[in-house]
């Protein structure tokens, strides 16, 4: 009976999350594009062979992984500092907490639009500031070696509050007594951070790491609006490439292949990361 109550919700999840994966698996062995009149025609492993030799895909995969790893690492460091600050007791803390949450609550596309104006060459404020400092033009949105850092920056700005909240929850779960005891034994605040706070915060750090890495690996909204994947494809992500294949080149078979491959790469990355953390003993505190 109780299972029956859960059935509609679970069914909905199964359809919306499970069906696409099955469908992609099937589509990835079919040609389904304008060339086939948008009808799926079995083509063996042609899509997968094409993927293996597709430099653009592997470049995008590397760029996506780079984006995810760097932005999530920065977010974690920044969030830790902010969480420590917001965890202290001071007047107006509630209001500041709410205000720092705002970047996370705004639609990504909206702020991506905002960043395009702020980083605009030659009229954006950053550019104007750089000029007045005598730095010359920065061309932040049209220099392949720099633009991806702008996307990292925008992502850090937007999602740091999310990690901050998770870490704040972690900080609140650490009993005050531990700190008093540590102080009585003559430990300094810095030692307390290293030997009490960080170890007990570890589960929260790992959780936010896992969640954010998976989400950052699927980055789409931000790059589509802020850079469109450019300049010269330098900020194109796997999701954007899959989107372009499907919606612009109308090659659904290959688009499905790219998405499935992206999902498999992500899974492999998370598994590898878990094994790595396990091998250095970082996951031991979690086996309770």
């Amino acid at each position, binding site marked *: 009976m109780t299972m029956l109550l859960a059935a509609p919700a679970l069914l909905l999840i199964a359809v919306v999350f499970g069906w696409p994966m099955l469908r992609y698996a099937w589509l990835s062995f079919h040609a389904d594009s304008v060339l086939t009149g948008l009808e799926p025609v079995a083509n063996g492993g042609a899509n997968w062979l094409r993927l293996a030799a597709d430099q653009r895909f592997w470049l995008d995969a590397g760029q996506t992984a780079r984006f995810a790893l760097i932005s999530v690492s920065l977010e974690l460091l920044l969030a830790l500092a902010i969480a420590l600050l917001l965890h202290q007791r001071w007047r107006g803390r509630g209001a500041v907490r*709410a205000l720092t949450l705002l970047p996370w609550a705004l639609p990504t596309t909206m702020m991506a639009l905002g960043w395009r104006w702020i980083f605009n060459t030659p009229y954006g404020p950053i550019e104007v500031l750089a000029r007045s400092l005598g730095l010359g033009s920065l061309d932040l949105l049209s220099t392949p070696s720099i633009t991806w850092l702008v996307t990292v920056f925008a992502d850090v700005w937007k999602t740091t509050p999310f990690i901050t909240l998770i870490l704040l929850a972690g900080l609140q779960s650490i009993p005050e007594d531990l700190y008093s005891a540590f102080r009585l034994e003559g430990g300094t605040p810095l030692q307390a951070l290293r030997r009490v706070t960080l170890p007990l915060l570890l589960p929260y750090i790992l959780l936010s790491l896992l969640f954010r890495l998976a989400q950052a690996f699927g980055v789409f909204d931000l790059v589509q609006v802020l850079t469109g994947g450019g300049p010269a494809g330098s900020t194109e992500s796997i999701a954007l490439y899959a989107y372009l294949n499907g919606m612009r080149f109308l090659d659904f078979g290959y688009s499905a292949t790219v998405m499935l491959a992206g999902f498999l790469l992500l899974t492999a990355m998370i598994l590898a990361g878990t094994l790595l953390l396990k091998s250095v003993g970082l996951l031991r505190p979690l086996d309770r």
Partner: protein
Amino acid sequence: MTHESMTRGRITPGLMTRRSLWIALLLVWSLAPMLWQLLSSFTTADALVNDQLSFWSRWTLNNYRDLLSTDPPFWRYLLNSSLVASLTTLLTLMLAIPAAYGLAKLPQRLKGILRTAVVGAALFPYVLLFLALLELARTFALGNNLIAIAIPYSALSMPLALLLLTAAFEALPNDLEDAAKLEGLSLWQRLRWVLLPLIAPASASTAILVFLFAWNEYPVALTWLSRSDLLTLPVAMARIAGSSTYSVPYGTYAAATVLGAIPLLVLVLVFQRQIVSGLTNGAIKG
């Protein structure tokens, strides 16, 4: 608390000003980009590209006037987003609350398996689903329909809703429901009159997080909605950006950003507590 207590008795004026400095820095970091948009939205197109203009000739309301006189006017997108987000929240809660109750009552083992699956779905970068969802929309003629889009949205926010609400049901003492059962209350009555009021805080947290998700969702809306009077706010924003990089009306942009941010500003300031407890409970119990 932690670090303050570490230094209790040693809180010097110097330490306090240093903290104020960090707080100020944090606020600048979080708010400066939005404040810049606010400033730009009141700046004339000329002044945006010419910093030689005198201070008094820089300001205008034209950006807002332009934004509201387009076809469809900008408020239409706000309305669409409100409708979609409200419907999604309603549908999600209607499905998730009974489901979470059912899941909380399941035997431990089965619950473990289902929870792993739900956590997996919650982690999944859902943008990868868009192509198959688009096919479904075509097959069942659900495209360009603000009511229909609430179905995938509910599904996409269901994992988080289930995690939060199942945890809330599990935290309730069993005696309570047993007593209600002895009183002869049916399952529906127990849910409606005994359990629902008790999980109200968790439901509120879930509702606000689902609402935010639906309000901000982009890839599905991008592929399901194409009629310009049906666009939700994120898609409308991206469409404005889709015009050429060089001729983009940045003042109008900024005005759009400001108008689009106001509902969220209100939402976050009013429901800050629910958002925080929702995310943090999700972290602890999920």
